[in-house]
């Protein structure tokens, strides 16, 4: 029989090795698989997207965006030219109309899939972009159309960017401006939060900012931007604020910025009226809650707490519905009984 101590040590070494190799995303195996999957087609499609979005794309910017060497970029460019998707005028890259359509198809797949992830699944918000980035190359045009149908032909992705139509049209709202170019004291609604780079996006999410939120600009200096939302005041560095786009709204706001109490603050036995569902409840979840009759004006009462304290069951229109605390926090109810 093998010495048990020796066997344990060998096993520990094997485990450590496989952790290094297979750690999700960072493990060697996944990195290797990633480079293997970066086929010519995927590189071409990513290059098209980059050239479509960038104001002045160059070999260096492409190399950075696709994380490949400039030599490899040259091959990709050559491939795009031979497929008549790209023309080069002097030092400028210019997409042909076929190239533009192709790029828009990929963008359509990406944004639709992000919308699907946001509405129908529980995947982490910070991972949407990455998952969609992988799937955009795998979905066939039929898959994309089926997805669009299923989601009810949405116009915007969850970050507020327009989704190109199947025939390749895409318009950004005319009145859309950057947060920093608003007049002081003006009211506006957030319509877009840029999801790249991930680190900045994660900070915006952590601030509790989301699409559809109404804001009022209080102060703009070269060092900071100050504005208020229903949740209170926010202070952002200009580099963060530059990733927020807004549409100005008329001076008369639909409702006051601050609305009611969160449902989660109700004590057992208390009853209130629902005021609003936060825009952060979306897609399948929002439909489900509305199906259950959780609408502005509905009377809702906290009735029982589970044995572990969370979730809490609420009485809504005669039915008993259990909601988790973090969900109930997104539903606001009247401050008075």
């Amino acid at each position, binding site marked *: 029989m093998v010495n048990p101590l020796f066997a344990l040590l060998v096993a520990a070494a094997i485990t450590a090795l496989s952790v290094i190799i297979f750690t999700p995303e960072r493990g060697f195996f996944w990195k290797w698989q990633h480079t293997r999957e970066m086929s010519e087609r995927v590189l071409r499609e990513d290059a098209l997207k980059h050239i479509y979005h960038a104001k002045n794309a160059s070999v260096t910017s492409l190399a950075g965006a696709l994380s490949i060497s400039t030599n490899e970029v040259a091959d990709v460019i050559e491939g795009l030219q031979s497929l008549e998707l790209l023309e080069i005028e002097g030092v400028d890259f210019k997409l042909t109309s076929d190239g533009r359509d192709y790029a828009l198809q990929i963008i359509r797949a990406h944004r639709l899939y992000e919308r699907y992830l946001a509405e129908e699944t529980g995947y982490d918000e910070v991972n949407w972009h990455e998952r969609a980035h992988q799937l955009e190359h795998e979905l066939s045009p039929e898959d994309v159309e089926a997805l669009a149908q299923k989601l009810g032909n949405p*116009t915007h992705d969850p970050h507020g960017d327009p989704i190109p139509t199947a025939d390749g049209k895409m318009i950004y709202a005319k*009145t859309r401006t950057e947060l920093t170019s608003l007049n002081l004291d003006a009211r506006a609604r957030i319509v877009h939060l840029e999801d790249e780079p991930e680190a900045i996006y994660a900070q915006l999410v952590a601030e509790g900012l989301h699409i559809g939120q109404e804001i009022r600009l209080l102060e703009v200096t070269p060092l900071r931007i100050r504005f208020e939302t229903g949740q209170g005041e926010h202070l952002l560095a200009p580099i963060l604020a530059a990733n927020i786009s807004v549409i100005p709204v008329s001076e008369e706001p639909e409702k006051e910025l601050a609305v009611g109490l969160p449902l989660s603050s109700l004590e057992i036995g208390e009853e209130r009226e629902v005021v609003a569902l936060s825009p952060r409840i979306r897609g399948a979840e929002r439909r489900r809650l509305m199906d259950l009759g959780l609408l502005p004006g509905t009377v809702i009462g906290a009735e029982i707490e589970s044995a572990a304290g969370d*979730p809490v069951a609420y009485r809504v229109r005669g039915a008993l519905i259990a909601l988790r605390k973090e969900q109930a926090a997104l539903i606001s109810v009247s401050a008075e009984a």
Partner: protein
Amino acid sequence: MTIENTTTLENILSTAQALRWEVGIDFHEKVTESIYTDAVKIADRATTRPEEKPRFDFDRKLDQILTSRVWGFPLMLALLMIVFWLTISGANVPSSMLANLLLDTIHPMLKNFAANIGMPWWLDGFLFDGVYLATAWVISVMLPPMAIFFPLFTLLEDFGYLPRVAFNMDNMFRKAGAHGKQALSMTMGFGCNAAGVVATRIIDSPRERLIAIITNNFALCNGRWPTQILIASLFIGALVPAQLAGFVSAMAVVGIALLGVFLTFLSSMFLSKTWLKGEVSTFSLELPPYRPPRIWQTIYTSIIDRTLVILWRAIIFAIPAGAVLWLSANITIGGTSLAGYLINFLDPFGLLIGLNGVILVAFIVAIPANEIVIPTIMMLTVLVTGASAGEGTGVMFELESGMETMALFEAGGWTLLTAVNLMLFSLIHNPCSTTIYTIFKETGSKKWTWVASLAPVLLGFAVTFVVAQIWRLVASIL
């Protein structure tokens, strides 16, 4: 339609499309919300509600007890224990009646019939000792517990208690990044993992559903209870004085089942922190009013929908298993059977992880149905040791007394470590083929089916390996 009309139509459509972009992302939601609000107002005006029902107060009282911080969990555990106890003890009698009929009456009749018409020994052995016996075994061990467990389970569901279980357990599943309704598919998995996997359909969101499917295998199913009970009463019960033996071995089995629950949480948490990162997207659990269960309807539908469907799948998979088992024990090359070669080949690895070659081969043969693990182990032990028990090469059997079984295991070189690791490995190994097939049908993904099948085996090897080494280390020190 004239050309002019088409262009206007196109103009209108493209203008509409442009406007859709202009109105912004939340327009759709606002319209839906106002439609719902109007609908509710109209409905409220048009309907009158009868007076509050008298049951309402009773419901509230019951809920206060069943979901209270003090009584919620103990009551839940007690109810589940009662269900298991009813299943296990209630299944004994019909199981032995079925075994009497199928194994002790029909099987000899078939053998007689074969002898009378002069059937060659290999055909007779293949058909009646291999295929028939394995199938009959699966039916007699599997049918009675399922026919008791599923109706009981459905009665609790019908009464309205199971949603309260999900309500109480949700907090733990939330911490593991999973959905509270997974409590229900897990509990269902105690009856049968294939049924548990199907039961995950109640979870709407794909991520949480996938977690529930992959981890369902850690719910100790009916097919594995008999193995646990037999080994615990033979080996664990023997460690303590006779009057405590029953209680201690029962606790050992409960301990294994609780370890399974713990592993469910652990693996759910692992998955939702790594490959299936995220949070529960849609959680709303309706707690329906309690109502008297419709007993006959429940029994009928749960037997037709759950028991028979699963039994049928198990039979389909048991037939080839019986054939393979008999053939591997009877086809010999150079005096050693195929099973013998495989056992010798796997023995070093089996011993390393505190099991042996026979047990590993039995788990391979028993992929179609966990019920036949013990009879296969006994048959193969006889084959390897040449002990005087059983009914012939490649024929599964059961020994009447525990003493005889124990003697056979000891002849096979078993120790307490073998028994403990067998119990662990029986909990932590691949799902049976019925479940694997169901996982594939439910996920539609080969990748996740592979993960759900292989990950538990690897974990099982790891756990038994570590236990064996530590056991030996401690033994060498003492």
